[in-house]
């Protein structure tokens, strides 16, 4: 139920970011519903597959989509007590996203063009450097909650009430930087570019068409939403429903939609004011993310744990 909502809502978030961004740049962009139209169009179209592609190329969209989907299923959206949460803790979520990325990169290399290989190579570099920062930020969170189950972490945050944790502040900053890198937004990657030399994500899915492309795009939007929900619910859990009854669910849903809209707004603003950086600046950027997360860990250990 919750999952269906996320899946249905993910294109909306992407569309929202896009249209806000267009507004900020004094353009009259497409409405926030445009991604749905794109999806419908792509699903109707015929699939063209390069003749050099193998079975991996055709299986990859499904793997990418389902693994992202499953990862999303483990993240509490509107209510805290998710029946699917114990199936996969946050490490498994990270693992599932990595599985999707693995196949995405393989698909990029499958056709045998230079672009695909280039995109795959860059994507793997970025994700490799983002991984320790992600883990460190997650460690900071899970060590104070003593659990890696997302439901438990969110619950811990709620029962604790408003407490200012310096470690959370740093972990949040680190995780935001990582999320921007992982979802391929400016300044690490530009989802709107089709200039060959600057593409990362787009270069890998260059050969896709029809429903394959639709699945790939949808998975990318889903990932964006996942990170948004993760950040919103773990760091600012207030408003999330405690029980599964419809009332609490409704309130929780309204709150999370508002939170996501705000995050989307922030993303659009930052994408407008920032420029994409060179690929070899990205390591420094992710180093900064790691530094934040490490500082979060340190300040957790120094300031917050009883010795």
């Amino acid at each position, binding site marked *: 139920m919750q999952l269906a909502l996320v899946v249905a809502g993910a294109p909306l978030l992407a569309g929202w970011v896009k249209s806000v961004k267009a507004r900020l740049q004094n353009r009259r962009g497409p409405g926030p519903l445009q991604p749905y139209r794109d999806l419908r169009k792509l699903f109707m179209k015929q699939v063209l597959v390069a003749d050099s592609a193998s079975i991996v190329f055709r299986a990859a969209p499904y793997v990418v989509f389902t693994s992202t989907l499953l990862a999303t299923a483990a993240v509490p959206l509107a209510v805290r007590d998710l029946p699917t949460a114990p199936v996969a803790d946050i490490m498994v979520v990270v693992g599932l996203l990595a599985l999707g990325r693995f196949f995405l990169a393989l698909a990029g290399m499958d056709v045998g063009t230079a672009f695909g290989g280039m995109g795959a190579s860059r994507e793997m570099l970025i994700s490799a450097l983002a991984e320790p920062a992600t883990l460190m930020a997650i460690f900071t969170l899970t060590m104070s909650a003593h659990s890696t189950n997302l439901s438990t972490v969110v619950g811990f945050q709620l029962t604790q009430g408003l407490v200012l944790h*310096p470690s959370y502040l740093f972990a949040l900053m680190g995780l935001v930087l990582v999320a921007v890198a992982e979802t391929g937004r400016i300044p690490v990657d530009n989802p709107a570019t089709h200039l060959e030399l600057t593409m990362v994500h787009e270069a890998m899915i260059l050969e896709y068409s029809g429903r394959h492309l639709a699945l790939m795009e949808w998975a990318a939007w889903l990932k964006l939403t996942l990170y948004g929900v993760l950040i919103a619910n773990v760091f600012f859990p207030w408003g999330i429903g405690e029980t599964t009854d419809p009332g609490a669910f409704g309130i929780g849903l309204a709150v999370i939609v508002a939170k996501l809209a705000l995050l989307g707004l922030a993303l659009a603003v930052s994408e407008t004011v920032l420029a994409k950086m060179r690929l070899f600046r990205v390591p420094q950027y992710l180093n900064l993310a790691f530094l934040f997360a490490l500082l979060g860990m340190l300040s957790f250990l120094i300031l917050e744990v009883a010795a």
Partner: protein
Amino acid sequence: MNLTQLSLPEQAIFVLAALVLLVSFILLSQTRLTAAIHAFAWQGALVAVVAALVGWVGADAHLYLSAGLTLALKALLIPWMLHRLVRRLDMDAEREALVHPALVALTGTLLVVFAYWLVLPLERLAVTDTRNLLAISLATVLMGFWMLVVRAQAVAQVLGFMSIENGLFLGAVAATRGMPLVVELGVAFDVLVAMILFGVFFFQIRESIDSLDTDRLDRLAETEEEA
């Protein structure tokens, strides 16, 4: 110590102290001079707010005064002076490249861990929350020192020196709820004089070696003629 047992202002003290440490890292890796000066100003402001908050929690009126002094001096006056200096020396756009930025930052974190480890045995001496603040302030001092080591640029070195002073002040506030006012005034005056002297020195260094890169000071060594 559990954070949940503390009141909100006390938690805020910790957050701000952690931010002071963050600014230390920024100072360490910021290669543009003007940006570094801004970072330093922020650090001064943060330290001042911490002092004020500590004063508020402990109802110590004289800490307000120290806080005001810090704010005026370290967040406004000295950065302004440095800015003017940099402008007059035409170094607005100057930046220096660190050899291994990642390594420098990593050593910084090691210093933080080391500072934490040093402060741990003080457990039985002081209340836990001040001990933790002490760890932060010691780390800030060490980071300032580390900055003196890795930066060759004279202005950057002055910033490192000043951030050592910030760390010391933070430590004083944390450990003893601030020094006596006379001492603080004296220190503030010292810092100001030091700043003016630094300014004079900058011009002198520049005159003699045509650069503010302190690594080139070895030209002044007497052995150079022999070599």
